[in-house]
Each structure stands twice: as structure tokens, then as C-alpha cells.
């Protein structure tokens, strides 16, 4: 797989939190798709593979609207927030095997203006693969949403390793700082201090309000093609050096994992680095799926940027801010830019590697990592280079 596929187009719809501006999920996914296709210097008819999100319009609807007459490859990855990066892996496999030549990935939703994102699973948790277990054994005790599930893991981490509330706060503050450098970020003008963070209402201890991602309307899309076809495009190609995805064991019930910190990423990360033939110390920045602050810390550990238990110290002292040792979520992430189910992390990573991102450009960015986290700890990761 190494270096056989490239990201050649990226794009987003408008990101909004305004019922008045609400459009259908199909409309915003098409808006993002057209921007990514144009960014790749292609016409929509040239797309021959689609990886739609499990939440939103089908391949058939997308293809009919885009006028794609020769659709040769279509599949949907059911990994929740890990699906976008896992789809990038599938796209790379498709173009490197010849199953398709130009593949479109798109995800997005009306997480603000229609059903609020927080209510989707509490209303019907069985939309989740394995959700019947949550319905029968979690929900009766009021354990109804991801914030509460993951808070249980965060609390255990604090107990075993001494991770602190302030360290989770450092993650929220870094994302907010990065958002101030990004015109698209919905929180760009909302400065956040540690005092604000600590005095915000508790949602599910240890998660306070600013530990939780935004609920937004928006979509993002990416176009992948083979390395050969990627030459002579509008923008310099971004190479997929390695990618992997994995489910933890068991994937449908997280409390009985022998090692509760062993998630999909724990297995996927070494695989992706082995394919890419680089190590975490070679990485210049990381776009990490930040549904909640602790998941950033945990993924930093499981990706191998530090040892397990050291994540708390790692995120302190500006290390994950632009200018630090490992800038994380340079766009502001799900916490402070917008929540479009992880595709925006791939978009940002590609832009960082193209360069010229102005104030938020990571200087000398050559290699970047993007991760996904979904459902009860599914994981995905891609290692990208310019």
C-alpha cells in the first residue's frame, strides 16, 4: 500500500450552528463533495468509487446527484467516528488494487439543526453496531450516551496513572487556541481560559462542558487517486504512506475488556507505522479524533507518541500546540472547529502537508498522522506525507 495512493482533493460545506441555515444532509454532503472534486481538478463524472458514511445519504443518492455513470466501487465502513480514516484506508486499497481510480469519501450531518448529535444514541442506541447490549445492560442505569461511557474509561485512567482534570483542560485549551487561527472554526472568537474550563458545568464527571465536542451542521469530503494519477494535479499530492483500522475485543461491549485501555488503535497504529516504515517520532503533527478530551490523551498514548500513562504529562506545557513538539488538531478539531464525523481531520492533515496554511501552518511539516475513534473504541489511523 505504501505511497501508492494520494489525497488530491479536499473540501467542506459551510459549518453552521443555526437552524435558519439548515439544509438537508444530502445537500451539504454534495456541497462538500463538489468542493473536493473541484479541488482535485476533476469533474464529478470522473469519480468511479464512493465511500459514503453510515449516517446520511446512500451511495446511490450521491451518485445519482453527481451524475456518476460508471460507479465501480462502493462500500460503507461501520465504525462510527473511526469510519472516515478507515474509509481512507479502503480508498487507498481500492486505487492501489485497480478496483477504482478516483474515489470520493464524504461524511457530514445536521448534528445541530435536526436531531442533536447527543440525542441520536440515547433515542435509539441500536443504530450502533452491537447497540442492543447497551440497550439491555447500560441504558437502564442511565448510561445513555458516549460522554458517559468514555467518562468511565477516563476515570479509570485518572485512578491508575494520576491523570488530572487540568491535563484534560490543556487539551480543550489547545484546540480552542488553534480554532482562533482558523476562519472556518465555529469557536474562533471564543477564547477559553483554564478558569473557564474548570468552572464550566459537569456533564459526566470527569467530563465538563468543554471536554465535549461541538454539535454542528456540516460535511467534508476527500478525493483519493493512485500516485500515478496524482501527478500534475492542481495541488501537490499528499501520499498515504500507511493506514490501518481495527476493532477492540470485544467491540460491542467495553466494560469487560481485560485491558480497558486496549482499543482498536492499539492494534492499528503499529500496523500503519510498519506499512509506512516510519515511527511516531518521525511525525510532525497529528489530527486526532477528539470527541472528548480524554480520547485525545488516550489516542496519543495508544498511537505511541508516549508510553501508556504518560499522556497527561505529554499534553502539558504547550507540547500539543502549534509551535510545540507535536501540534494536535491544528484546525481546532471536533472540540472547537466543527464536528463532521472525522473527515475534517483528514482535510486538515492534507492541507498542512500541502503547506501555505498561514498562521496555523506547522513549520516544516513533512509527515502527519490522522486518527479516528468510534463506537465503543474502534480505531483507525493513517500516516500521510507531502
Amino acid at each position, binding site marked *: 500500500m505504501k505511497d501508492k495512493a494520494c489525497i488530491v482533493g479536499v473540501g467542506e460545506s459551510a459549518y453552521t450552528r443555526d437552524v435558519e441555515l439548515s439544509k438537508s444532509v444530502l445537500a451539504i454532503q454534495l456541497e462538500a463533495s463538489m468542493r473536493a472534486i473541484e479541488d482535485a481538478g476533476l469533474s464529478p463524472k470522473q469519480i468511479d468509487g464512493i465511500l459514503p458514511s453510515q449516517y446520511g445519504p446512500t451511495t446511490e443518492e450521491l451518485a445519482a446527484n453527481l451524475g456518476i455513470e460508471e460507479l465501480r466501487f462502493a462500500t460503507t465502513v461501520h465504525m462510527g467516528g473511526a469510519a472516515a480514516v478507515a474509509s481512507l484506508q479502503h480508498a487507498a486499497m481500492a486505487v492501489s488494487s485497480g478496483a477504482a481510480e478516483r474515489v470520493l469519501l464524504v461524511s457530514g450531518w445536521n448534528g445541530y439543526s435536526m436531531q442533536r448529535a447527543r440525542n441520536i444514541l440515547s433515542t435509539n442506541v441500536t443504530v450502533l453496531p452491537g447497540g442492543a*447490549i447497551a440497550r*439491555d445492560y447500560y*441504558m437502564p442505569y442511565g448510561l445513555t450516551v458516549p460522554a458517559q461511557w468514555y467518562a468511565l*474509561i477516563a*476515570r*479509570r485512567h485518572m*485512578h491508575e496513572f494520576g491523570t488530572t482534570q487540568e491535563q484534560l483542560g490543556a487539551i480543550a485549551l489547545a484546540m480552542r487556541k488553534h480554532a482562533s487561527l482558523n476562519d472556518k472554526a465555529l469557536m474562533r472568537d471564543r477564547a477559553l481560559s483554564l478558569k473557564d474550563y474548570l468552572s464550566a458545568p*459537569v*456533564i*459526566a464527571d470527569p467530563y465538563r462542558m468543554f471536554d465535549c465536542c461541538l454539535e454542528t451542521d456540516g460535511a467534508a469530503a476527500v478525493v483519493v487517486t493512485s500516485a500515478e494519477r496524482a501527478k500534475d494535479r492542481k495541488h501537490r499530492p499528499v501520499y498515504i504512506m500507511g493506514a490501518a483500522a481495527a476493532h477492540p475485543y470485544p467491540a460491542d461491549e467495553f466494560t469487560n475488556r481485560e485491558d480497558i485501555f486496549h482499543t482498536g488503535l492499539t492494534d492499528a497504529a503499529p500496523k500503519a507505522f510498519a506499512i509506512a516504515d516510519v515511527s511516531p517520532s518521525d511525525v510532525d503533527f497529528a489530527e486526532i479524533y477528539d470527541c472528548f478530551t480524554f480520547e485525545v490523551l488516550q489516542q496519543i498514548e495508544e498511537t505511541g507518541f508516549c508510553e501508556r500513562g504518560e499522556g497527561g504529562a505529554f499534553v502539558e506545557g504547550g507540547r500539543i500546540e502549534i509551535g510545540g513538539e507535536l501540534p494536535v488538531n491544528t484546525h481546532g478539531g471536533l472540540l472547537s472547529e466543527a464536528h463532521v464525523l472525522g473527515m475534517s481531520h483528514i482535510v486538515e492533515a492534507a492541507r498542512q502537508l500541502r503547506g501555505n496554511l498561514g498562521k496555523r501552518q506547522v513549520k516544516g511539516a513533512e509527515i502527519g498522522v490522522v486518527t479516528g475513534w468510534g463506537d465503543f473504541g474502534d480505531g483507525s489511523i493513517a500516516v500521510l506525507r507531502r
Partner: protein
Amino acid sequence: MSDKPLPELAGYAKEFYAWCRRGDLRFQRCSDCDAWRHVPREMCAKCGSAEWKWVKSSGKGTVFTWTVAERAMHPAFADAVPYAPVVVEMDEGVRLVTEIVDCAPSELEIGMRVEVAFAKVSDELTLPKFRRMP
């Protein structure tokens, strides 16, 4: 205020909660390798056996982790906040999500010893909850 979400009493969940209604906390135990398991499954993940029995638990365990829900994320829990979903690790090794009935959220501690205390929800359903051990 809407009704609290309930388990769907079908399949193995029906059997698990039927034991609870009789005041018995039972988990599946593999007939071949003796491994305990929860949640219920068709097969033993350790040895692959499809033979198993519902075996009575000691009912004793230890708090493994918890969270305090201060904001209700489901309308049925609006009057319940703050409440604390807890994961208890049973002495048999399996873990389950539950609640400690006689412990304020602020007094919860990982490692606290607890024992099962059944809570009747309706004629059809009794939930296994826990209380502090003396």
C-alpha cells in the same frame, strides 16, 4: 418526563433478568473451561465451547470505575441527576454496569467492596444494583 429505558426482555437478556427477579445474580459459565462471562454470548470466547450454564455468582465485587452524570442526557433521568453509573468487577472476574444504592456519588471510590442488592422496577423487571459491604 418520559419512561426510563428498559432492557428488551428477549433471548438471553430475558433469562438474565428472570434470574434477577428471583433474587439470583447469575452469569454464564462455560461447561468446558469454567470461564465466566458477561454479557451473555452464544459461545465461550476462551475455548470455543457452546456448552454453558447460568451459575450463581457470589454477588460480591469491587468498584472498578464510575462516572457522575450531572446533566441528564436522556429525559427520563432529568429528576435523577446527579446519579452515578458504576462498573463493578465481580469476584468471578466479570464486570457489569450498575448503580450503588446506598452511596452518594461524592463517596464513590475505586476499590470499594460492594454486594448485590436487587431493585424491583416492575412486576416483569428487577435490576441488579449494589450496596456497600459492611
